[in-house]
């Protein structure tokens, strides 16, 4: 029984980690007023890059590469959406399609296989000496893939950045009332670029956590919608780091539940209903049934000056 609980919670943490990371990225972007539908695609490219980096160099080089590539792709999205005022959804969707195409292409090209890459070295696990020995908690937190710890730390860091630093205040102002920010001399466009590139950082990291964290290889289309679930977690979490984390944990829990359903004897709930849960919850959150979830006021609107 206890072993089941430990396994469940431990798996929850692991499954939630990519979501937490991506959701943090989406949050920074949207807090500045830019919708980033491309999280899914950036995650996928990040996963591939991390795998390739690990294959040719080492796992942590892979992580670094994933993060850098993520930021570059995000910068492209920023350029098209912010400076060229293209529709943010169309631009993001194009990136997602491109990501699927290019990762499949490179997979075939470099590794000769269409479905998955060979196994590579993953980042392994970190052990925390004292905690490891505590019952249950030890099993959950004592030894985990590094990404779990990184994600949790980043949640705290993000909270600190967003709500405690001047930078965070300004980002939020740009997303809520860009004209007000402009009126005190804040560079609205610049801030948005930074926020979107940050989201690329997080999404790339999330992708790395998939391919060389949870697994040790890259599978075609392995992000399989997690980028969108991360957006859902962000919305459900009301655009706060702690909220996104909790929502992601909830979704991760549903995921873990359906994965371990057999072993823990939870067979009466069809696995698909557990899989559906995150999406239904998000819609309910949006409709206000579970508390109103309102995005930053300027979310999605290009900032056009001279409209004072």
């Amino acid at each position, binding site marked *: 029984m206890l072993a089941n609980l430990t396994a469940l919670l431990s798996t929850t943490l692991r499954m939630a980690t990519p979501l937490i990371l991506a959701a943090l990225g989406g949050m920074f972007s949207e807090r500045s007023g830019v919708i980033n539908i491309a999280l899914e695609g950036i995650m996928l490219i990040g996963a591939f890059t991390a795998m390739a980096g690990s294959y040719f160099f080492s796992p942590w080089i892979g992580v670094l590469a994933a993060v850098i590539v993520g930021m570059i792709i995000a910068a492209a999205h920023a350029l098209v959406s912010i400076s060229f005022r293209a529709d943010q959804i169309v631009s993001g969707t194009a990136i997602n399609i491109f990501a699927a195409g290019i990762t499949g292409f490179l997979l075939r090209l470099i590794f000769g296989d269409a479905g998955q890459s060979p196994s590579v070295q993953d980042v392994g696990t970190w052990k925390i000496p004292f905690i490891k020995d505590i019952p249950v908690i030890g099993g959950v937190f004592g030894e985990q893939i590094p990404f779990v710890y990184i994600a949790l730390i980043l949640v705290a860091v993000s909270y*600190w950045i967003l709500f*405690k*630093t*001047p930078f965070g*205040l*300004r980002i*939020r*102002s740009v997303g*809520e*009332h860009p*004209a*007000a*920010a*402009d*009126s*005190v*001399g*804040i560079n609205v466009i610049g801030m948005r670029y930074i926020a979107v590139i940050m989201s690329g950082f997080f999404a790339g990291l999330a992708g790395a956590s998939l391919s060389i964290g949870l697994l040790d290889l890259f599978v075609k289309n392995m992000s399989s919608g997690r980028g969108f679930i991360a957006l859902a977690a962000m919305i459900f979490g009301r655009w706060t780091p702690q909220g996104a984390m909790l929502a992601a944990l909830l979704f991760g829990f549903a995921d873990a539940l359906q994965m371990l359903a057999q072993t823990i004897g939870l067979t009466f709930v069809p696995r698909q209903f557990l899989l559906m849960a995150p999406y239904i919850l998000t819609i309910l959150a949006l409709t206000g049934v579970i508390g109103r979830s309102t995005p930053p*006021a300027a979310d999605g609107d290009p900032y056009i000056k*001279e409209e*004072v």
Partner: protein
Amino acid sequence: MAAGNNLAVEMKGITKRFPGVIANDKVDFELEKGEIHALLGENGAGKTTLMNCLYGFLNADEGEIFINNKKVEVTDPNVAINHGIGMVHQHFMLVPPFTVTENIVLGKEPTKNNMIDYKTANQNVRDISKQYGLNVEPTAKVQDISVGMQQRVEILKALYRGADILILDEPTAVLTPQEVEELVKIMESLTDEGKSIIFITHKLKEVQSIADRVTVIRSGKLIDTVKTDTVTTNELANMMVGREVILEVEKKEANPGEVVLEVEDLYAKNDRDLMALNGTSFSVKRGEILGIAGVDGNGQTELTEVLTGLRKKEKGTIKFKGREITKPQTKRLFEEGISHIPEDRQKRGIIMEFKLYENLILGRHDRKPYASGINLNNKKIKEEARRLIEEFDIRTPSEKVQAKSLSGGNQQKLIIAREFDRKPDLLIAAQPTRGIDVGAIEYIHNSLIGQRDNNKAILLISLELDEILSLSDRVAVIYEGKIVDILDIEDATEEQLGLMMAGAESEEVEGGDQVG
């Protein structure tokens, strides 16, 4: 005027253009140190644009700006702020979910260990709040505080950044009379401390009681700059609204018939949830044109929206052809016989991407002969379109052209054609000649007279006093959501109307310096 070295601000030859309009046309402006200088003009005259150029929110196309006798290129607000200029905008630039302190220190936050030092920030806010006598609650969220306090926050924002020159854009627009008094006291104490203030307004009363000097702008051009104790309110009113030759439309005497529209005690809110109509009452008869004059923002927009079913009323009655309309619905109103020429033709009146013939049936698109059942009768629609184009002299190569390729005047004619063709009993025309060239204006005016002579009732709402005076049989003035008075055209003079429009008492005949 004054000795050159006493000028806080000098703007020379400022010109700013937008697509299709010259907002500022070689305007000169100067502000002396320690004075309160009013910038007076109607809405759209160019006052805010001029100040936005000073503040760096906009960049002037031509002209120079001198701050404290030094030439400055004000490229963005940071430059202006660094030179001691602060601006309090008409529509507050405050972030609603942030606290008062956060709004004030945004962009110049005191920090400790890379974090915002809220303790110091709050204390700073309390300190300058006390220094200038501007009472605010530092930790309250802006969305929760009163409008008066929000304005004080905006002022503190400027003072926090060391502003010596303050620009206030229509500061009293959203204040209660008591709050206005407080604001005046604040302004006076600020100038006592050596600050210089520019405040933008369209209200004559304030100009005389608050300002030392006033600059009047009309249609983007500088009219004059005078000391407020050397002019009368009437003279100011004239400068503001203009005294050119009025169009003399040849029209017969009006022959008003029965009452078609009766509005009693109408109350309605605007988009900001404030009451925009405060007990409006008037009536319109067949065969007459009732003109409603007023400065923009006194409820005209909301009035037309309520009467056409686009906004709901809070209280009051509307009677059309004798019957009360409890819940005005646009479609039904069309059928009953109300037509509407909207004030913003590009927003409400036409669909730019649609072709002319498609625009001409908007609102009737599901009625015969344009449609039978669900099917459109395109052939008939085009036929009718050609007829209307001919009848109303719309200049266009064909009915198949998109509306956006028409000039403003012809777009307006399109709308008029559509609305007149409905043969309404009541026609509501809001700013019918806004942005139109001379030839089209003539045409539109004559059409309106023509409809009136055809025994229709016309409600004309216009910001152009000349237009009101030349077309109306009776003139009403709307101010702060109420009809101040309704005069017969013979009794209405420009001075009188100008005074009423600006909220002054209409008793003044000879120039008195004290108003209200």
